């Protein structure tokens, strides 16, 4: 009796009770599907963190000015606490490669003709575009010359570009900010989001222009500091802290008028939500597989009992215990592999749906499918063993008298 015959017998037995077989396999199906979806999400998230770091620029410390509470109980008037001297001093630190100042106003209304929108308006230098790996889909980015000569030019993010100039090219068009006309020189490529906030709803203008036209004063409220490696991020943050404490004469117990943050932390925090979900899915998958396994054991025991007579007949005709055991094990395995296959199919489809509906990046690795399928088979072997053994060692004379 070969594998084919065992399988044939097993499928025949399962078909005879197909609804019961399907319900029994449901636990395995759910378990395998969630395992597949989980690994796809997990792999997608890993890939997504790496991609985020690449997309947003590697090894970047966000240095920001902060409001401080005043002795009067009010809050300080501005968070633009970073002086040109501060930035120059930070740039002097040995590990620092670049310091890119930025000056952002949230929700400032800009308009083109009768259309208007309220994006983030950011004054910056080309260094900012460079360390954050910006690129232009149309026209060009800001240049050092724009900055030096204080040209009133603007690079649009994808969202304001599509709102202000639907259908047409914005390059060469003019956009009004307060009472000034800026000429659009380009549109930057989509950046996705950081920490749940879209990076596409911004417009860039040279920082010299921003200081002169929009804000006044030389201080800025933020700068992005790049170092060579991720390992240098932490120590450099400490050095910046120390430097700023000294420069701003912040004594112990006094409020800090600045903050430093590792950009990677924000990215990781965004992925932490995904990670919680992953743990949940893993638990669900494991529990479903366990319940599926118990279900299979249960139904196999029922099946053995129901077929006591058949087992007796087979044994009377000379089936060795091993043959009977193999037959019932084959049945459990057939049930589990069918469940495994369906589960894999559902898992792959679910990964695609999650990607489309939730926007999470998912990546289905062939190995993960094999592992999930193997897990299903393992469940079948483990939970099918005892019922099969029980069938194998049933005394034939007794079994045949069973009704």
């Amino acid at each position, binding site marked *: *009796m070969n594998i084919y*015959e065992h399988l044939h017998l097993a499928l*025949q037995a399962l078909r*005879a009770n197909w609804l019961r077989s399907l319900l029994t396999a449901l636990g395995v199906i759910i378990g395998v599907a969630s395992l597949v979806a989980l690994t796809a999400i997990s792999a997608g998230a890993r890939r997504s963190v790496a991609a985020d770091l690449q997309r947003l620029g590697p090894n970047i410390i966000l240095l920001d000015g902060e409001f401080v509470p005043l002795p009067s109980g009010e809050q300080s008037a501005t968070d633009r606490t970073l002086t040109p001297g501060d930035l120059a001093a930070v740039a002097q630190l040995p590990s620092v490669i670049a310091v890119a100042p930025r000056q952002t106003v949230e929700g400032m209304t800009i308009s083109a003709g009768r259309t208007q929108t309220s994006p983030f308006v950011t004054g910056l230098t080309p260094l900012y575009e460079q360390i954050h790996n910006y690129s232009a889909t149309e026209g060009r980015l800001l240049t050092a010359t724009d900055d030096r000569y204080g040209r009133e030019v603007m690079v649009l993010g994808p969202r304001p570009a599509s709102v202000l100039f639907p259908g047409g090219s914005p390059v060469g068009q003019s956009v009004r900010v307060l009472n000034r006309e800026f000429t659009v020189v380009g549109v930057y490529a989509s950046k996705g989001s950081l920490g749940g906030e879209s990076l596409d709803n911004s417009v860039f203008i040279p920082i010299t222009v921003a200081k002169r036209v929009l804000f006044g004063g030389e201080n800025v409220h933020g700068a992005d500091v790049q170092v060579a490696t991720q390992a240098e991020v932490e120590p450099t943050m400490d050095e910046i802290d120390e430097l700023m404490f000294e420069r701003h004469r912040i004594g112990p117990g006094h409020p800090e008028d600045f903050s430093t943050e590792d950009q990677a932390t924000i990215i990781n925090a965004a992925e932490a939500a995904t990670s919680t979900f992953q743990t949940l899915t893993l638990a669900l998958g494991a529990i479903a597989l366990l319940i599926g396994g118990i279900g299979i054991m249960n139904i196999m025991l029922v099946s053995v009992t129901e077929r006591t*007579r*058949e087992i*007796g*007949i*087979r*044994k*009377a*005709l*000379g*089936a*060795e*215990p*091993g*043959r009977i055991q193999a037959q019932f094990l084959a049945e459990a395995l057939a049930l589990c592999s069918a469940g495994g296959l369906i589960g894999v199919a559902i898992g792959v489809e679910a990964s695609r749906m999650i990607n489309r509906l939730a926007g999470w990046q998912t990546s289905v690795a062939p190995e993960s499918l094999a592992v999930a399928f193997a897990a299903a088979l393992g469940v079948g072997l483990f939970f099918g063993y005892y019922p099969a053994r029980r069938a194998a*060692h049933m*005394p*034939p*004379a007794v079994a*045949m008298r069973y009704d």
Partner: protein
Amino acid sequence: MVDRVIATQGLRKLFDSGSLSVEALAGVDLVVEPGEFLAIMGPSGSGKSTLLSILGCLERPTEGSYRLGGEEVAGFDERKAARVRRERIGFVFQAFNLLPRSTALQNVELPMIYGGVGRRERRARAGEALAAVGLDDRGGHLPSELSGGQQQRVAVARAIVTRPDVLLADEPTGNLDSKSEAEVLAVLEGVHAEGATIVMVTHAREVAGRGTRIVHMLDGGIALDEQIDLPAEAPSAP
């Protein structure tokens, strides 16, 4: 006397159910020669079914010796017993005991499947066995599509397909009407005429009378062993 099919000595079987111990067989000595058609009779509880189970290696005796074709098989473990049943014993049961989801042909093939006979040979031999019981046109039918008599004939075909040393029949006509009974007995006689050794348990005298010898059992022992004189035609010389 070397070629005895069955020879038992002091066969005892005790059934233990908690405090109660029942002696189903109390020392049975039985010899069956090749070509015999032996009928075992006796009231229920006399031990005839237990004896048949032990002769068929379905159960092990508590004590005593059982030689099948000269080989001691009483102490065989599950695997060895399975092999003996597969190769040297054919069974026919009162309740037919065909697999309900397999066709007649598949049922007859079953012992050969476990014996590792190739698919084509299996088919051919199963077909021959069905022809021998007059059912070669019913191979594709499920048991539920056959009459009781036909089902039992399929069971006989299944029992003889491996050409066993002995065919054991446990009340083979117990579930049949008189017409089907006649059919099945005719088939068994045919098989016997071909040279098969048959041991049959029955409680009906007229069924037992179709054999060549009747053993009467009582209280786990053999009470009477009667040889039936064959009518008219004498056994032919070789």
